[in-house]
């Protein structure tokens, strides 16, 4: 990275926010993976690996800039059940859509191309994994959304918008964490 994230408070804020999201995604996919087998288990394993790699990269970027990375929560708590494969996949979709939103939100704060170059592929990866989850949940349904991560855009898209499905306001997949 040619420019330290320590150069700007906004950039540190963006990277710390992404890191917190990656911590949560790693944990969430590990939980989901325990309920999955076959293609779902494979996807969960790949998702955990991808989010761990992102987590490690963000930690390195922050340390390069002299900032202590935020730690993972000591414990997370799910507010709903994930005791069947469909529920586990819905948790995975919730995590990927939320991660995509976080990446788009961070892009609005990052100016350095080197930092953006670390974020855009993560947004792309989250959108692709979300499509794979949708394919497992409902192969006949729409597998993509027009604007993955749209909830993280700094300004709403002009209407009549097709909003990102985003996370459910409440429901079986709304995880929370304990501190």
């Amino acid at each position: 990275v040619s420019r330290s994230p320590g150069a700007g408070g906004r950039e540190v804020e963006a990277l710390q926010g992404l890191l917190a999201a990656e911590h949560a995604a790693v944990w969430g996919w590990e939980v989901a993976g325990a309920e999955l087998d076959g293609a779902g288990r494979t996807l969960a394993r790949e998702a955990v690996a991808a989010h761990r790699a992102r987590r490690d990269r963000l930690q390195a970027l922050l340390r390069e800039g002299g900032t202590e990375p935020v730690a993972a929560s000591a414990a997370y708590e799910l507010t709903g059940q994930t005791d069947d494969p469909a529920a586990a996949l819905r948790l995975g979709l919730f995590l990927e859509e939320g991660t995509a939103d976080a990446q788009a939100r961070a892009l609005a704060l990052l100016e350095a191309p080197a930092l953006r170059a670390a974020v855009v592929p993560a947004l792309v990866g989250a959108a692709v994994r979300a499509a794979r989850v949708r394919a497992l949940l409902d192969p006949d349904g729409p597998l993509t959304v027009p604007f993955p991560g749209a909830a993280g855009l700094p300004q709403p898209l002009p209407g009549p918008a097709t909003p990102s499905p985003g996370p459910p306001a409440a429901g079986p997949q709304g995880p929370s964490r304990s501190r």
Partner: protein
Amino acid sequence: VVALGGCGLFDDGGGDGETTRSSDPASAAGTADLAAALQAEEALLSAYRTAVEQHPGLRSRLQAARADHEEHRRVLLTLLADLDPSGPWSATLDPAAPTARSAPAAGASATGSPSPAPAAGPAASDPEQALAALRDLEREAASERTEQAVRADSGWAPLLGVLAASEASHAAVLAA
């Protein structure tokens, strides 16, 4: 117990007003960024139309991605018409105006000089070839939008990144 939003996931992003962009989106650079993205969308839509016309059996499989691209086009045209009201964008938003297939505005530059959208490419002789060609176009578009999102000096990096993610997800679905 703290909602997962506290981790940065699912925040609404509107809290502190610190999301102002590094530079003005309503700039010539901003218009050029969005115009380039629009040109790519027009090319993709043209390619999808060609594929469906030649292989009607693909219609349902391609329907969702086509709808996504139509939505990209609508949003980009709306933003461009707002940024550059004197440009050719408003005319193509008019339902009575020529459709995307013939709209001349697709490749207009920041200075308003139009250039045609790229041709959809040679016809694929069988459906699998058509799908492979579309997949390659989506990957190329995703790569271009990714590069734009990294380099954009106009404040449109988040939207360009979102478009890159969408094109990449289409490529993944077409490859499945």
